[in-house]
């Protein structure tokens, strides 16, 4: 079983989000970066699969050198080797294109991504990648079992859950519940130092979208308090005054 896991490097969930350069750049000052939580689930699941059935887990990250601590962490958690495509991850289409360019001809049986990056929340890499490689893509999986060359997966659908089966190779995106993330141990951290991390250059494709500015949501004007003994009046306010129910 040869598995590729897409790892993205994102700001920690507690980060306060601010921008610089006239609101055109994300302000990384003081921000701690982590492996995208959904990608961490994908990686852990990949390791669970190869531990049972044998095989290798390669991680791939589209990002500049500053993403390497997260990539090393992936190796410490247990990935066999890692690839970094030396380019800034600007949009989902570009990222998927870079990963597709690498994965083509490598013969991966399974490609796992996270459901979305908690930074740009596009949730589109799995689908674009699947299409570019001519593979099916199964989004938001909460379980996966592989027998022979068929994967059986559960996935979230609008208002419910679906169980699907699909012949390998395929692309799938990890949803919460797929597994619990693994924390690297000392031995893993030591071993990660000597595991291969290959850097490849981006293929020269043109980007078809660009973020031109950022903005923050307007601050709330302040909470209006209702005394607990008048709690019932909340319904009146919502119904009569602001007509929201």
């Amino acid at each position: 079983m040869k598995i590729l896991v897409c790892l993205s490097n994102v700001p920690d969930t507690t980060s306060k989000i601010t921008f610089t350069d006239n609101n055109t750049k994300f302000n990384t000052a003081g921000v701690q970066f982590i492996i995208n939580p959904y990608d961490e689930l994908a990686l852990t699941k990949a390791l669970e699969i190869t531990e049972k059935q044998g095989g290798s887990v390669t991680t791939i990250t589209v990002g500049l050198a500053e993403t390497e601590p997260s990539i090393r962490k992936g190796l410490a958690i247990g990935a066999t080797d890692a690839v970094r495509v030396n380019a800034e991850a600007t949009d989902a289409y570009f990222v998927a294109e870079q990963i597709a360019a690498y994965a083509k001809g490598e013969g991966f049986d399974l490609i796992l991504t996270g459901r979305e990056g908690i930074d740009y929340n596009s949730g589109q890499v799995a689908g674009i990648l699947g299409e570019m490689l001519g593979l099916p893509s199964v989004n938001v999986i909460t379980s996966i079992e592989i027998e022979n060359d068929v994967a059986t997966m559960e996935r979230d659908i609008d208002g419910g859950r679906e169980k699907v089966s699909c012949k390998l190779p395929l692309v799938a995106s990890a949803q919460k519940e797929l597994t619990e993330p693994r924390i690297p141990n000392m031995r893993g951290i030591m071993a990660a130092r000597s595991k291969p991390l290959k850097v490849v250059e981006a293929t020269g494709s043109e980007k078809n979208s660009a973020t031109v500015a950022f903005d923050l949501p307007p601050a709330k004007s302040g909470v209006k308090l209702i005394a607990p003994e008048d709690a019932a009046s909340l319904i009146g306010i919502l119904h009569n005054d602001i007509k929201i129910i």
Partner: protein
Amino acid sequence: MNVLIFAEQIDGHFKKSTFEAITYGNDIAKTTAGQTIAAVLGKVDNAHLSELANYGADKIIHVNNDKLNAFVPEAYAKVVAEIASKENASVMVISNTYTGKSIAGRVAAKLKAGIASGVISAPDTALGFKVRRGVFSGKAFADVNITSSIKVLAITPNTFDIKQDAKAANITEMTADVSDSDFVTNIIELNRVTGKIPLTEAEVVVSGGRGLKGPENWHLIEDLATALGAATACSKPVSDMHWRPHSEHVGQTGITIKPNLYIAVGISGAIQHLAGVSSSKVIVAINKDPEAPFFKAADYGIVGDAFEVMPKIIEAAKALHH
């Protein structure tokens, strides 16, 4: 420019988010002197199909192929992209639901189109083609300029109003060029909770946190939700402890929602929780701790014990419909 809207349906019925998408697409078509075209895949009867004309669809293209009654992303994307090319669509509008998200990227790749998902604004076409989308799980917005000739927009449900723009129902039946090889994924089992509003599409959401002490107290959340026709949600620890299903977990690592009204009961308001709910139009926080961070993000607040205040609120909500 011609706008093609993927009109998502479940068992022959359109959802509210589908009508939102039609209105959204129709507004673009109108300002750019194009046609508003809806693509419907799978079995839907004419009465339902013609509903799309009420919101501005000039043309409704229906692909009634038995195989498409099951939602298989690779096949759906192929058919939708084929219709987009045939109809000369410059803009594709798709709802950013689980279904929509599963095909948006594939359609974009087929059409070599730039894609923006989680879109919350109409495109600004004054200089290029710019849309606003949510980023950092609700903590910020990004303005994205799409430069390819075809654009795919996956729009956030509950963001755009539905507007009537009645046209004559012009339904075209189309046969799609699909074969068994387009259906690689097989659906073995499908369970949809019926009679329950999907969280991402709910206009009102009642949500509970660890302050409710245990799953046995969830009637306080459910009773209010029932009285208000709302969906139920919860904080992460609540789903981690299996008090509630994971599908109800909202926040940065759960679902991002945008209802008109979000009522948070016994939830502290941690940054990761707020990320997923702060775009709600009106937020009510109920918490016994006056220092709870949720009060800084709320429009209305009750500092009190949920076990005492919730029964009063539920009673008032029930009385509303009498």
